[in-house]
């Protein structure tokens, strides 16, 4: 029931997002006809093309038309690349998704062991060392990290060639290898944040009465941490990981630029520069849907983890 409600709210959010972005592109000067014909176009030609493209209709009518197309997967034609936007997107989307998923995976693999160890041995040399490493890594913007990786792992150690991209169809293994380094650049700062968040959530749990009860039963610290505290801490950690997942997606936009990955991010940046609004609009919609989906997933998990919320829902 609540999930259904959430789902409806999600559809609403996406619709609102699409409408707002559609509206925004209508108010800015220079419409599609202008872009297509260039600045030297005669007013008559402009008028004609506007009529032809249906740009003189009221905004709502045009939005409805656009939405109808979008629902069928038709986002119009890219003015720059002269090809349907959907086709363009379907080429770029897999790379971005793979990059985001790979970096999220790296975050999880790095964050959980480190976070648990730091919480278990709070105040030890190990914990203090990683607290400092964390603080520092969090301060590094992912694209600068990407540049550092390019310099040290790419140019100095020659593990890969900076700027080169390999597509999946060419060579899957090589493709993954080339995605690994940008994924690392995205993942490290997020992993540092996650370690910190996980640790602090666990430490908040540490002083709770139920932990004392569990210790009173004769459970060891490690066992209490894994079987009791982690379950409680996960309630807030899951929400945080949702944010991290969305950020991994956003991070890929900038980092794609550093490593020359052919993904949505690069396309978006190029399209903004070229005023290729059909593409920009479609990408914004795609990213919006992705973020909303992640949030829905988090919500479902959250309900599974916390019996108090679960009962309210039923």
């Amino acid at each position: 029931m609540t999930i259904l409600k959430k789902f409806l709210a999600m559809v609403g959010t996406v619709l609102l997002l699409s409408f707002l972005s559609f509206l925004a592109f209508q108010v800015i000067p220079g419409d599609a006809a202008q872009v297509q014909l260039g600045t030297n176009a005669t007013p008559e030609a402009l008028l004609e093309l506007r009529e032809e493209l249906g740009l003189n209709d009221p905004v709502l009518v045009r939005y409805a038309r656009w939405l109808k197309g979008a629902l069928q997967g038709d986002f119009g034609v890219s003015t720059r690349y002269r090809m349907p936007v959907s086709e363009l997107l379907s080429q770029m989307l897999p790379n971005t998704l793979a990059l985001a998923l790979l970096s999220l995976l790296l975050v999880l693999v790095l964050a959980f062991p480190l976070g648990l160890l730091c919480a278990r041995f709070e105040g030890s040399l190990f914990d203090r060392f990683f607290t400092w490493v964390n603080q520092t890594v969090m301060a590094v913007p992912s694209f600068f990290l990407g540049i550092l990786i390019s310099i040290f792992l790419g140019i100095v150690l020659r593990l890969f060639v900076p700027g080169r991209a390999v597509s999946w169809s060419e060579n899957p293994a090589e493709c993954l290898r080339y995605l690994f380094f940008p994924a690392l650049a995205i993942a490290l700062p997020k992993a540092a944040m996650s370690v910190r968040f996980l640790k602090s959530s666990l430490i908040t749990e540490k002083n709770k009465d139920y932990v004392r009860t569990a210790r009173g039963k004769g459970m060891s610290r490690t066992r209490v941490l894994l079987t009791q505290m982690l379950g409680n801490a996960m309630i807030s950690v899951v929400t945080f990981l949702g944010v991290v997942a969305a950020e991994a997606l956003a991070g890929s936009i900038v980092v794609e630029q550093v490593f020359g990955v052919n993904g949505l991010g690069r396309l978006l940046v190029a399209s903004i520069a070229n005023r290729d609004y059909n593409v920009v609009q479609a990408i914004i919609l795609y990213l919006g849907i992705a973020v909303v989906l992640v949030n829905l997933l988090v919500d479902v998990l959250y309900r599974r983890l916390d019996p108090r919320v679960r009962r309210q829902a039923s």
Partner: protein
Amino acid sequence: MKKINYNLLFGSIFTGAALLLVLVGLFYTPYDPEEMDAAAKNLAPSLSHLFGTDNYGRDLLSRVMVGARTTFATGILTVLAGGIFGTLVGLLCGYFGGWLDECIMRINDGILAFPSILLALAFVGMFGAGEKNIVLALGILFIPSIARVVRGEVLRQRELDYVTNAKLMGASTGRILFVHILPNLRRTLLVTMAIGFNNAVLAEAGLSYLGLGVQPPKASLGRMLQEAQSCLRLAPWYAIVPGVVIVVAVLGVALLAEAFSEEKSPARAAKKKGKSLAAGAAPAGSLLFAKNLRVSFPDARERMEKYAVNNVSFSLSPGEILGIVGESGSGKSMTAKAILGLLPESANVSGSILYCQKESGQAIDLLAAKEETMQKLRGADMAMVFQEPMTSLNPVRRIEAQLMEVFRVHHVCGSRSLLRARLVRALREVELTDAEGVLRSYPHELSGGMRQRVMIAMAMLLRPRILLADEPTTALDAQTQEEILALLQKLQKEYGTAVVLISHNLSVIKKLCSRVLVLERGQLVEEGACEEIFRAPRQAFTRKLLQAAQGEDFTKRLLVPKDSPVVLTVSHLHVYYGKKTRLLRPLSYQKEVLGGFCMTVKKGEVYGILGRSGSGKSTLARCLCGVQRGRMAGRIQAQGRIGMVFQDPYSSLNPQKSVLWLLEEPLRNQGVCKKERREQALAMLAAIGLSEEYAGKNITQLSGGERQRVAIGIALMARTEILILDEPVSALDVTVQEQILALLTKLHNLWDLTYLLISHDESVIRRMTTNSSRVDAPQEEAEVKKTRKNVKNEKNSIYFSEKFYYYEGIKPESEE
């Protein structure tokens, strides 16, 4: 040993370095940052170009100085603009709530769900690239995050009694928001702003790097990184210099934020395991023998060890019930935790606790024992029941899993069904009839009494030889208390368990224990058989405790005028919570907290209201002061100014203010001039029994009793005639309780006050009030009906009718 705050130190150094770079850059750059020199392209760092040059031959140091200025200016502008608006939105939403808050927060959450760089990109995508647009986008995007933090904090603060108190002092809404609440948000705001600054710097750098921010030839750190991208091979330093500046600045600010958000935590103690005093054999026949037990905590402020338990020795024989009694902070709980080895990590322990082992009969020192040994003992040989049944069970696991764990940890073998049967039996033993159902439940589905039973069942599961019960009944209501105590006694008799019962409540101790230890500030002041101590206490402190527990009858000292006029009438007060259940029927809500409460109070009376927790006592108090929100019906008439004293003096006084400031506040709101304010406040300070040196003290420096005195003083400022006392002594130790009640008696006689004393404690009501009535939760209507009848006969009150008078709120001096 003073601990260096590394976060503060390095934070200051890094932030300072970044600031210095920008500040020097304002007045002096080694070269013109935009001057190109074809002869000096891509030079590595050298003495003439400290950071090298870029691909146009521009000096990198000069460029980074200018670039950092642009980037940091963006960050600061963003934070200031967003911060001010965000704080305002958060304050208003949090304080007023309602549908506007709902709407704004929905939008807020929507925006926050998206990573800010994504939104900034969308914004720039729509409105074009450029520096101004970036500041605008980031500033707007910062509003929701700060608004959410501020709102959350305001919501938390709003529930604290000091805000209600400020309202009662007559402060306007604006004053409450900006003078009372905002200073308490200082730290949160600072930290959020710092994080916001960092995010803005990173986002600006990211956008400029993508070519969507600052446009060339102007420099910004992100822009420089983009330009450096093309010559990574030739001039790697070109990328590293601006990148490192970003990292240093962001790291510095993050560390500073960390330092500010850190609470002053006690310094970690150097681990000193208690020196085992040559395992001197325990006195024959005793199960547990503590000798010279000391528990201390390092106190950072006073640079010395603070003793929670100081030189305490005692023994426990098999099967006896030993009581430990003392006020809060006397070291009762620490003693119990020391036995189980569950002291906080910062504690230093010395002395010895010898425990006579089950099989071998040999004594081991629990303080020197290895952690593994302790783990085997805990839960099996000794177990503990805690004060708070609400929080002592893991909220996300079923009761069955939590009980099963005891078996698993102690390697009790058996098939699942067998163990389950054992659990069912154990739960039946603690008088939980629906044992199966309880096993399947989560803790939040059980009542407080049931949870405490589960805790006892868990503790007794492996038949321990020692049960430590730390205030096991304090959090429960009177009837459940009795039942739980009877249960403990029954189990103790049945299994011959030795029980250490810790309580501040002497009647609990008297009922159960055979022997008692009396602790005062960590020291053992008296020890002996229970009867003896209650009959003939040897020590002054014990006498004081007993006296306080018996309680003086203050009604004899109260001067109550006869035939005085009625000053306060409440008729048929109904209060509702929750949503409306039926749309058309008036006054149909999910929950009725007060169902037609009536009373009349005459001038000079001390009127008592007795009720269990959750019976609506506090709601009644809030209604009388006019601070209750939500739906109400009925009528309240008052003659004279009403003041109120809250239960918890730790939350009812604004921690940011001084005693004098708080005492003056009601007068300040009435526009009394400064000189007179001070005079009156100092007079009040004397009246509440505090010396003049308290005037300048901050509230946080005061003890609970002193705080409650100040709270009474504030409520009585500005000629209050009717004083509502909502559990004024419940949060205090018994001896302090007596002092406060005595003070109230004195003030009552001095100024002809009328008191309305609300309490759950029958003895307080009996000893202090001249007239009283009960409140109960509405389903138990009997008492209320009786009062209703009384009201009918009363001449001056309004005649009972089915028609409701809608509550209109009382002005401080309404006259009827």
